[in-house]
């Protein structure tokens, strides 16, 4: 059982192929994802939004200074 679990982790580590097989697949998954995201966004606190905006600003400044 333990060996099986280790093999699974080993499989996980080598990588991911997330490419969409078709435009239709991409579109249908995008619609589902956006719907779920919009619902989750409603639950964000002001503090979480502020943290995101601050990190965005920090990253933009770092990129500008590079």
């Amino acid at each position, binding site marked *: 059982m333990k060996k099986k679990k*280790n093999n*699974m*982790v*080993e*499989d*996980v*580590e*080598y*990588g*991911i*192929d*997330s*490419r969409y097989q078709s435009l239709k697949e991409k579109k249908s*998954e*995008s619609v*589902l*994802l*956006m719907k*779920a*995201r919009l619902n*989750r*966004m409603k639950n*964000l606190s002001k503090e*979480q*939004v502020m*943290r*995101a*905006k601050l*990190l*965005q600003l920090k*990253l*933009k400044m770092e*990129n500008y200074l590079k």
Partner: protein
Amino acid sequence: MHIVETSTGKKHIIDILPVVDIDYKSLSKNRYFFDWKEEKKQEVYKLLICGSKEILGVVSLERIPTEWRVHIRLLTVSKENKGNEKKYDKIAGNLIAFVSKLAVEEFGELTCVSLRPKTKIAQHYIKKYKMNTTGTTLSLEVPEILNLINQYEKEEE
């Protein structure tokens, strides 16, 4: 950001840089598991130890501005860094954190990084990176994406 040498625990500072044409010669399917030449038209980045030329990990992505989203198309570590015998740890995590930073920089609080691992390994990503699940898609959004970036940046200190 850094990766950890598994045999010694030593931390190595990393660079994540765009893949250039000449890199595709060394990105063989045998060592990097996928045909990376197919990704030539995409945005592709390589992870290296600072000062080294050896590519330890690769990621290709698609920016989808209409959805405030960056989709990870392909992500891999080199053959020597797969499984229990891997030489360095945290390669995949650093690549995901790097893509997360690109996404937050572009889309701020609306941001999203998505990927679609095979069903059997999805649980690993959900647990390790606190990803949300929607159908077969896993995603990182605020606040989890901020925590992941902070986690990988803090480990730098």
